[in-house]
């Protein structure tokens, strides 16, 4: 406590009788060990990925060649039209993949949230299913479904349904675990069943969060359906892949520009709606 400041009436309280403030703890051995480990991990990662700024500088010619062929983009009506049509397919994959995963995500989320789960067994089982669906990337699901239903957008929709169920189910379950448990207790006392409590206390309290997360996932899914196209699951990603294989880089740039328009539009829309509902 500074003595100079105590002269004024409104100064700090005299510190004489109060116990001395506790000392700051010195940096412990554990903290130092963690720091060393983190640095070591980065060194290993640098080696493991063959990270090399030199190689990048030496390779600039290749990139320049590429850009020379890619610019200006091929803006012919035919390319624009097929591109736009494929972009709509991509949008459709994202839309269906998101919407059709709602029922499965909802059921799993209700089982996997401590506030609504009927018992420990169902809770653990639902958590495991969600973890699995989340852990397998949508591209891997797409590759699997392409072998089942062939190349095309349908495989992309299936892939998104599976992966998005995992992600959205987890996010929704977390949203339900964060709510105030009071209304749930109040209905329990009145003799409501677990399903009734979920329908009348838990779900109505999380509607804004659920819609916000749904829109966020729609946004993400439209972007991933693009990547799904690269592995053969239809949409504009598929066209990008084709134009690269055929060395039509001008066409590829046009497609990428369409992708950008699509992604920005979906992002704006979902952000706008989320702001409106305050989620």
């Amino acid at each position, binding site marked *: 406590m500074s003595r100079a400041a105590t002269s004024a009436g409104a100064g700090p309280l005299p510190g004489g009788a109060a116990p001395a403030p506790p000392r700051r703890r010195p940096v412990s051995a554990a903290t130092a060990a963690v720091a060393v480990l983190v640095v070591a991990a980065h060194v290993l990662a640098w080696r493991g990925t063959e990270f090399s700024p030199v190689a990048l500088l030496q390779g600039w010619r290749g990139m320049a060649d590429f850009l020379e062929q890619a610019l200006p983009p091929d803006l012919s009506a035919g390319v624009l039209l097929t591109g736009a049509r494929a972009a709509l397919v991509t949008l459709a994959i994202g839309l269906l993949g998101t919407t059709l995963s709602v029922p499965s995500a909802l059921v799993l989320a209700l089982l996997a949230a401590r506030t609504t789960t009927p018992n420990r067994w169902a809770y653990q089982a639902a958590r495991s299913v969600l973890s699995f669906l989340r852990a397998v990337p949508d591209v891997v699901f797409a590759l699997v479904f392409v072998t089942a239903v062939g190349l095309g957008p349908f495989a992309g929709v299936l892939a998104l349904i599976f992966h998005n169920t995992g992600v959205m189910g987890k996010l929704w379950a977390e949203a339900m675990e964060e709510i105030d448990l*009071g209304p749930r207790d109040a209905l*329990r*006392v*009145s003799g409501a069943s677990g399903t009734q*409590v979920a329908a*009348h*206390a838990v779900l*109505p309290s999380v509607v804004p969060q659920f819609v916000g997360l749904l829109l966020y996932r729609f946004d993400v899914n439209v972007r991933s359906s693009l990547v799904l196209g690269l592995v053969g699951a239809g949409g504009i990603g598929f066209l990008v892949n084709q134009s690269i294989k055929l060395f039509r880089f001008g066409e590829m740039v046009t497609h990428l520009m369409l992708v950008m328009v699509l992604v920005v539009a979906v992002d704006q829309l979902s952000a706008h709606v989320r702001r409106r509902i305050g989620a």
Partner: protein
Amino acid sequence: MAAQGAGAPALAVRGLRKSYSGRTVLDSLDLDVAAGEFVAVLGANGCGKSTALRCVVGLETPDGGTVLVHGREVGPAGDAGSAELRRRTAMVFQQIHLVRRRSALDNVCAGALGRLPLRHSLTPALFPRELREEAMACLDRVGMADRAAEPAGRLSGGQQQRVAIARALCQRAEIILADEPVSALDPAAADQVVSLLAELARDQGLAIAAVLHQPALAARHADRVVGLVAGRAVVDAPASRLTAADVDALYVPDLRLTHLEAS
């Protein structure tokens, strides 16, 4: 309301015990509430009032003791045989616990969930017409019928608490336990809500016990006052015969300190 179990009080709590990690919170608590009676429960912070109420309605599991409704013993929470008996008791909370986004009417209807099959109760749209009418009557009873369509979250605290009481009525509860129903309300709203509880006991024959932190409200409206110290009922007197000394004894700081140290 018809007396059942000949002379048995609507609610009888016997020897209720509860401890949290070895610390005794309820120490063989007895509490009777008769039909038509309004009992005020007083006691210092931490003396176990909320725990007692939560044990009675099954939100907490007591370590021992029995709860009798009209002389019939209520089994543990989740026991299917006791479900009908448990539904006769409703609880009203200080934090009110309405679903803020739902209308007052839908919140009141939710009190009836325990007696509705799922096909009539999965969403408010499926609530039967008779239930809506009954819920309106309950809202009317607490003076909130004109606000039935408004989202509960938009009502004032006192109005919300009255809606919560209407929900308890719509549950057709015979016993209402209220845990500090007016602690968050201004003095006028508090008086209104407590006198509503007193009227419901007198006119409708409900058995009502309310935890209050304002001895004056208890003296003005309650039939009987029960005072808790350290999880035991040490005062049990008609409100008219409650003395200032009785009340002071409940809030003696020394008592609370020795209790804390002993535990």
